[in-house]
């Protein structure tokens, strides 16, 4: 019956908890759903501008993309002059929204302020998917004397005045090599369609059903900005000598990257090598101060829920006993609060760093004398988190307080104790090795 009641209680509790959660979450989700349930415009088949013009119409790239001026490798964005070659009526007689919306975000267009980026990947910007850093890096890792950094990095990537983000190379940068005779693809004012396709795949950029490698780019590559991260390349430049910094100190995987999909930002644990290892870093810039990098934290050095009093929601009573799974996860952030845990090593191998210093609060003076036995009998699995048998047997091999003076205890002093809790006797003794000297096994 107890078991049946328990299962009922479990189900009721689970239902109530889930209902409460779903209700709370559902209120937020509901508003979003309502917004998205607005009458949809009549579905139209997707139109991919580049695919249509190159494959359906058979145009070459240079039909629309022309150099800014003769001899320049900078190509201007196709404008009305290029479009009206074929679409004269759509521009000068009956203006079609379908045509205008390929370039302008408003209709009727008001000017060049509303121009969309082209070719647009996720409505953001053009991407050269298959750019291979491995094919472009300097095999000798030579250093740019102006910056002190690898010349191959600083040649293509520059930094704006605020130093936050790296810029990306443009045609001028590429032309430093690709304009030389014999280079493929060749970049010049006379580049052919084959040359363009050597780097660009506009059809794939525009088509959401492109191969998976084209849709798994990290968000920072797409947007050119960090997500909720505050970082300054310029600030790191300032201290590059003291910490022997180079681009590949953090971007160590870039030199071997063969396409943009394999590019990654440095992970938080990569910051540890400087920001937690050496005390030459001021305390404000240590890993324990989340605000140095994270912009989504509330006021204070640590998020409010990370303070000594208020723990993260996941740190429940059950979590204290069963957090091994979370702590052994790759990249577990235990070290942020638990300063004895080193972020450089696998978290799972550092359990003792906490467990050797964090004695449970219920281990009071009386705990070792009496109470712990009752709890060990109830559920030994909780003891096992810290203790192994030889810790327990060390004490249990000593003569306990109740056995003194031993002669009188053996002579009959133990009777009342055994009557109250016979189990305590058999925790250490067996009938065969002790009791049988005087007692009969069968109860009378």
């Amino acid at each position, binding site marked *: 019956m107890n078991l049946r009641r328990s299962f009922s209680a479990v189900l009721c509790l689970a239902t109530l908890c889930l209902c409460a959660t779903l209700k709370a979450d559902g209120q937020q989700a509901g508003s979003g759903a309502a917004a998205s349930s607005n009458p949809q415009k009549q579905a139209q088949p997707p139109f991919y501008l580049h695919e249509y013009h190159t494959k359906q119409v058979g145009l070459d790239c240079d039909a629309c993309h022309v150099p800014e001026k003769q001899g320049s490798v900078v190509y201007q964005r196709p404008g009305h002059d290029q479009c009206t070659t074929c679409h004269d009526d759509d521009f000068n007689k009956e203006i079609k929204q379908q045509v205008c919306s390929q370039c302008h975000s408003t209709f009727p267009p008001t000017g060049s302020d509303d121009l969309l980026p082209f070719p647009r990947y996720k409505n953001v910007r053009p991407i050269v998917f298959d750019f291979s850093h491995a094919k472009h890096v300097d095999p000798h890792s030579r250093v740019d004397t102006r910056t002190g950094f690898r010349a191959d990095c600083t040649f293509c990537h520059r930094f704006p005045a605020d130093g936050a983000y790296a810029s990306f190379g443009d045609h001028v940068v590429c032309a430093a090599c690709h304009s030389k005779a014999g280079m493929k693809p060749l970049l010049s004012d006379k580049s052919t369609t084959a040359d363009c396709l050597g780097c660009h795949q506009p059809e794939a950029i525009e088509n959401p059903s492109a191969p998976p490698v084209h849709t798994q780019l990290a968000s920072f590559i797409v947007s050119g900005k960090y997500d909720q991260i505050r970082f300054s390349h*310029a600030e790191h430049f300032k201290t590059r000598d003291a910490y022997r910094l180079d681009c590949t100190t953090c971007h160590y995987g870039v030199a071997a990257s063969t396409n943009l999909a394999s590019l990654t930002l440095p992970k938080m644990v990569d910051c540890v090598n400087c920001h937690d290892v050496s005390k030459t870093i001021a305390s404000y810039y240590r890993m324990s101060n989340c605000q140095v990098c994270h912009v989504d934290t509330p006021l204070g050095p640590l998020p409010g829920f990370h303070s000594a009093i208020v723990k993260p929601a996941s740190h429940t009573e059950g979590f204290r006993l069963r957090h091994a799974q979370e702590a052994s996860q790759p990249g577990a952030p235990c070290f942020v609060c638990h300063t004895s845990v080193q972020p450089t090593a696998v978290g799972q191998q550092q359990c003792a760093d906490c467990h050797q210093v964090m004695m449970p609060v219920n281990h009071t003076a009386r705990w070792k004398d009496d109470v712990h036995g009752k709890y060990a009998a109830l559920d030994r699995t909780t003891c096992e988190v810290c203790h192994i048998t030889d810790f327990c047997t060390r004490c249990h091999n000593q003569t306990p307080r109740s056995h003194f003076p031993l002669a009188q205890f053996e002579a009959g002093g133990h009777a009342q104790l055994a009557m109250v809790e016979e189990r305590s006797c058999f925790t250490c003794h067996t009938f065969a090795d002790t009791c049988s000297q005087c007692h009969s096994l069968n109860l009378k």
Partner: protein
Amino acid sequence: MSNCSRLPVQALAVAVFCVITVATARPASAPPNPSPDIGDAWDSLLNGAVPPSTPDSALVPAQANYEASPAGDFLHHFFMNNRTEYMNTQTPFTGLPTLTSVINAPATGVFNPSGIPYSPAFQSSTNEMYSFLNWGTRGWLSGRVNSNFTFAYSQDLTHVTNASPQLSIIDTFGSNRRLELVSGYIEVDGRPSDGLLAGSSLRLGRQDVYGAELAEMDGASLTVNRPRYSWTIYAGRRFTYFSDPFERAIGGGNFLLRFGKDSTIEYDTLYYVLGTNLFRFRQGFGDGWLFTSSFRMVGSAPTDFTADGIWSPEDGKTSLRLSFEQKLSNKDYFYDYTYVARDLDPYNPLLRLNLEALHPHSQFVIDFSRLINDRVRLGASVVVRHLNHIQDVGPFDTSFQDYRAYGQVFPWKRVDLLFAYHERDADDRTTTTPPLQFDDLSHTGETKVQDVSLEIGRSFIDGRLVLRVGGYYRNLDFRDQFTVITNAPDKGVLADASFKLDSRSRLTFEYGLDTDYHVFEPDIENSQMFRIGVAWSY
């Protein structure tokens, strides 16, 4: 399967991971197949082929000068955490004899009708100190080298008599003190640009390795951690301060493969007397779900299967854990590595801890926590364990249902209130066959435990001073083949203060008072503990 035939399997696993490591090693910063064409292109490029550009304005500010400390570079890489405590314990007595009829009177050699005189059993006060020191270096001399040493020292400052209520594990060591080197190792880490050695870490010395089971050893472990996989192999000599086991050689490995960012497969193995093998699968789903399942074997016997689901969405407000555990057999031993290891232990020749193994059972866990608003967090958990065979019910193992509800409230700024209610109902043990033998304990054990605790804390001076006070009340139902006890109360109060002197040092004061049901300890009025500690870190 015999132990010998399993060894090649474990060796094969190690070999496979070594091959994978070499095959998939991240190349050093230079590409693996340097192309002369690229080199030539850079040669020409850097020889004035490109007109020099104006330096970025971000590079204009002067570099901050690096200033070495007067003590040299060592202090920049040195860390230390120290905590030292002094503890005073007071035990007032009721004047009644103990359960074994011992009274607080000098032994005169003359029969005393009041009881057995033995005054050492009534020591009312003891003093003890404890110190913990963890120190080491990170990146000193070389950015690749870390060190970590941990010592624990405890000492009785008062002579503790044989029958004193304050007897503790310290009193099982010579001179009533224990100096323990908990850990001491040198760690050599590979840097990300080290190619084959990137993500590697070699630890030498006294260390703990977690995996199939905890391995405490003096030895070496090598870890390689890569985006797609990580592995650790280790071997050494088992150390322990609490026994002297005959067999010391210990070794094993942990191997983990990552599939995408949300899925891992893990195989952990440990060889000490018997082999222990643990297989674990983790899979993340959607918004904050993590599913984990594991299977464990000791020797050739399957012992445990677990399946856990954890929901912890990114808003940090909710946490839900659903867990199922099936104990498949009792062919393991819960605390130590194996029965055999304990049997070989010459220090503990007598089997003084007859707790038996945990028997096959099924267990379900639901644990839920929710931040209701900025001021209230509530949670609850239910654990149901059911022994699969009724004959396994015993004094240390039974079916139970465990309920826990807890909450945290922030009624005012800098004040927090914690409360918890806990109840465990075990089988009432009346349905089994009445005991016929003297040592039949199948009827013995706790049948119900209830705990209520309340704690309130307040911080002052921008959090530098924290005061906390709380209390608990515990109710116990217990039965033995001779006795039935219901509603045995146990209550106490706890108070502590913590004062942060500066960013590196902290003072702590703790006071505890608890009482127990006088049937168990009729001679002891209560137990009081006062503790003063200082913690310092660098």
